[in-house]
């Protein structure tokens, strides 16, 4: 192998870029021409292209190093009648473990699949187990057996499945160099299994190569039958088993148009996915072309683009390897596909469900006719037919496509990080990234519109949020849970912008939505309530904040336990609210003392949240008229902060600001001044000289200087604060602030007060 120095890399990279932009089958010819031009680089370039093939095969860097799953299971843990042995993979919906019966009654090992959603309500758990039992009765040798279904004490649902050892159907076919007819024979076994499930009113909804395995003895095994439905049912209410509205596709690459546009999921959805699988088996390619695909491309491919006939994909130049894996030549393969197989696949892949084969059996019948060289039932498309269909397809509402884009975007990210083959789990379902990431994608979309390169007029962050808030109403009504999540996130974005009333209204709507979906104990709802209380408090609506916090506290105690960090955080905050609301700071002190004791014990004395509570308790002690105790506690908290986080940290700065205030209240003006100066220095570095935090510290320091008789310095610093970021709310306070009493007779102070008021009113006009 030749060496790859930085210089060599720089020299070869432009050509690498050029050759990679060519279709694979043209690269060899190009390389030959290149060799004549640059004999010095040709070998290196060729090696790099070989490297590329090797790494594609390994799926190098395709799996994200960061997971977002709940990892609460451990080897040796008992789940129902089973004991977990080792993790065997990460499926689309959660982790999968190898397990065995705890009582050793059967030798056979099973796979336990944890599903990544919680069945919060008792009704949900019951429904889950019932559906699981129905699936378990499928009993077909080509369908992986579902042995049991249950819910862990944590509310995490799981399935006990037959542990299938085998390989993906497409890889099996390639490895055994099965020719076209043999592939179709094997595919008929798949159809047989799906038809059996359909006869039992169960739709698979997620058929794709990784869910269709061939065991070592050549037997087809379908995985995950009906599991997509169990997942979807958790979000919508159970309707009849055969059709349900708008389940989001689990695997966008293999999604049918109706799964993308939110249409009804029926047996025709499986017919479509089977058509894709057949396409893949015979051509080695997905109709959307070699991936990875952007969400937009994929949506277009699924909803809009007519797939190229399978036979057209077999090119004479690059098709040798492909044909060789089918024990034939490109010409023969193309000839075999042209006509009947093309027509059969096209009919299975019709965009409108009603135009596909009416059943899996009908598809199987046509394939059998083809194998026997009899005339098939499907007819090729005519021009007139295509035109009428085009008109119909264009009526898909734009809003729905937009929504689908978001859902697909979420899933597509998953398809790009497909698990590596080397350690391939039996079930290498594409990961459905969790809801938070979908939301992040949604937010990305919004931010993209504000990207300078894509600017359409000037859009402010607030306008973008308003647009997003509107989109939730129009686009997401079919998934109330996702809708609630989005409202929560957008509400938080409003909150970060200080738009508390808007945030409040979104939080309230999110909470109502999750109640009506029966998700009482959902974490998301609790988090939303937590944020709602904060938004209320920021608007001075303490009584309402108190009532939200009390309700939240009850819910958290029930759902999470009395010692849960979230429960404790709410207790601490309730204490704070009470102090602000009723001036009953003694009660607040009591609550926070209790929280602090627990946090020290549970999380440790130096945990972030323990420190936050120390800061809070110190403030409450001061408010309760106990400045000496407040100062002592704050001093202690500051020392820990400095040790654990260092000075340039928000919580440390908070501790410093508070301590300076307590020292001032105790009359220790010199200490307070020294600390305020230090704080100011750090804030200038951390926030910048013109930020509200920095300005407020200047204000505090000005009060200390005023009290000390340093009038000129105090006035100059106060002016500095007013002109550089002091929050407008504080402008009106200057005049009344008793800490500036000593300045009241100074005309320069009166001028400054007038200046501040003027600024406030002008800024109100511009808003």
């Amino acid at each position, binding site marked *: 192998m030749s060496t790859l120095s930085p210089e060599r890399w720089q020299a070869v990279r432009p050509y690498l870029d050029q050759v990679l932009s060519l279709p694979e089958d043209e690269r060899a010819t190009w390389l030959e021409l290149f060799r004549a031009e640059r004999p010095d680089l040709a070998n290196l370039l060729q090696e790099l292209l070989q490297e590329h093939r090797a790494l594609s095969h390994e799926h190098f860097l395709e*799996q994200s190093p960061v*997971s977002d799953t709940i990892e609460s299971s451990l080897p040796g843990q008992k789940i129902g009648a089973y004991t977990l042995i080792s993790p065997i*993979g990460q499926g689309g919906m959660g982790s999968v473990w190898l397990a065995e019966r705890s009582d050793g009654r059967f030798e056979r090992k099973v796979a336990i699949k944890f599903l990544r959603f919680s069945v919060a309500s008792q009704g949900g758990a019951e429904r889950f187990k019932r559906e699981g039992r129905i699936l378990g009765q499928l009993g077909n040798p080509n369908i992986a057996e579902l042995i049991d279904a249950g819910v862990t004490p944590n509310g995490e649902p799981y399935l006990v499945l037959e542990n299938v050892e085998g390989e993906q159907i497409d890889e099996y076919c390639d490895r055994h160099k099965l020719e076209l007819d043999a592939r179709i024979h094997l595919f008929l076994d798949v159809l047989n299994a799906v038809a059996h499930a359909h006869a039992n009113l169960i739709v698979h909804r997620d058929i794709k190569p990784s869910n269709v395995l061939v065991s070592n003895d050549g037997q087809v095994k379908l995985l995950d039958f009906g599991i997509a439905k169990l997942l979807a049912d958790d979000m919508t209410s159970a309707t009849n088993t055969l059709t349900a509205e708008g389940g989001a596709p689990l695997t966008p690459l293999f999604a049918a148009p109706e799964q993308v546009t939110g249409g009804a999921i029926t047996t025709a959805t499986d017919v479509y996915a089977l058509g894709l699988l057949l396409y893949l088996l015979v051509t080695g390619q997905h109709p959307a072309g070699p991936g990875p695909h952007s969400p937009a491309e994929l949506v277009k491919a699924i909803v809009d683009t007519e797939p190229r006939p399978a036979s057209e994909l077999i090119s004479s130049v690059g098709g040798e390897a492909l044909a060789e894996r089918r024990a034939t030549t490109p010409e023969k393969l193309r000839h075999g596909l042209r006509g009947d197989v093309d027509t059969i696949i096209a009919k299975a892949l019709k965009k409108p469900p009603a135009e596909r084969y009416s059943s899996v059996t009908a598809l199987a019948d046509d394939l059998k006719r083809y194998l026997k060289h009899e005339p098939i039932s499907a007819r090729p498309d005519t021009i007139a037919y295509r035109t009428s269909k085009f008109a119909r397809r264009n009526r898909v509402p734009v809003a729905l496509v937009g929504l689908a884009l978001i859902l697909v975007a979420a899933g597509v*990210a998953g398809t790009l990080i497909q698990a590596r083959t080397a350690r391939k789990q039996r079930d290498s379902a594409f990961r459905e990234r969790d809801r938070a990431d979908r939301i992040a994608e949604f937010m990305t979309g919004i931010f993209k519109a504000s990207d300078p390169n894509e600017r359409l007029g000037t859009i402010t962050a607030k306008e973008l949020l308003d647009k997003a808030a509107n989109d939730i109403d129009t686009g997401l009504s079919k998934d109330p849970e996702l809708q609630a999540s989005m409202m929560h996130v957008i509400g938080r974005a409003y909150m*970060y912008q200080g738009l508390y009333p808007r945030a409040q209204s979104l939080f309230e709507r999110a909470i109502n939505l999750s109640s009506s979906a029966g998700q009482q104990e959902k974490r998301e709802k609790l988090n939303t309530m937590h944020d709602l209380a904060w938004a209320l408090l920021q608007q001075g609506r303490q009584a309402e904040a108190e009532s939200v916090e009390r309700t939240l506290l009850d819910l958290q105690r029930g759902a999470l336990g009395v010692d849960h960090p979230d429960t404790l955080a709410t207790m601490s905050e309730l204490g704070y609210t009470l102090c602000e609301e009723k001036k009953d700071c003694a009660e607040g002190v009591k609550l926070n003392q209790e929280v602090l004791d627990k946090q020290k014990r549970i999380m440790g004395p130096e945990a972030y949240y323990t420190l936050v509570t120390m800061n809070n308790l110190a403030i409450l002690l001061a408010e309760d008229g106990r400045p000496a105790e407040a100062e002592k506690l704050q001093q202690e908290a500051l020392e820990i902060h400095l040790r654990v986080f260092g000075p340039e940290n928000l919580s440390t700065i908070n501790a410093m600001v508070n301590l300076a205030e307590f020292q001032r209240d105790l009359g220790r003006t010199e200490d307070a001044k020294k600390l305020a100066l230090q704080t100011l220095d750090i804030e200038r570095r951390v926030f910048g000289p013109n930020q509200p935090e920095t300005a407020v510290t200047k204000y505090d320091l000005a009060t200390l200087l005023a009290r000390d008789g340093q009038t000129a310095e105090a006035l100059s610093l106060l002016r500095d604060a007013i002109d550089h970021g002091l929050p407008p709310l504080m402008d009106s306070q200057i005049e009344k602030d008793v800490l500036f009493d000593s300045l009241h007779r100074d005309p320069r102070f009166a001028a400054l007060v007038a200046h501040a008021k003027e600024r406030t009113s002008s800024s109100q006009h511009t808003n």
Partner: protein
Amino acid sequence: MHSTLRPLIEAAERGDRSAADALFSALYSELHRVSKRELARQGGAVSLGATTLLHQAYIEIAAKEGTSFPDCGRFMAYASRVMRGLIIDHARSRSAQKRGGQFHITSSGAALENAADDRELTRIGEALDEFARTDPSLAEIVDLKFFCGFTFAEIAAMKAVSERTVRRQWEEARIYLHRRISRDLEA
């Protein structure tokens, strides 16, 4: 309005080494703070997706820094480098101590708590450090794509280039890293 991150970013872009270090540590502590808070909010039972974390951090920093804050694309370019650091540090510490109590970022997929994976991640990190000196713009694509989980479409929007270009650059970066790592193994 001036801000602290903005001058740092500008200085770093002019090639100021100490500004780049300061920017790195400022973003590091910010991401750390956000992830810590989000994890604490969720009781530590759930880990965060990298993109979620970055977006949350961007929303908060942009709100704090005001209108002068650089665009999302430039921010993400720096933040993704920091995210790589966070993930690799975590992998390093975990391969040293195995299952620790607190975690901020969990390893994924087939290899739950698999030390070999952590070592591989460390190797990728080392190869990438070296790559960043040879070809910084390609190394950045790897940070955004592999470590932060952005899609090609998102990266294309950030860089104002076509998606095809990003895809190709990604393949080029993979080729370089793959070769570097497999040669290391042979050596």
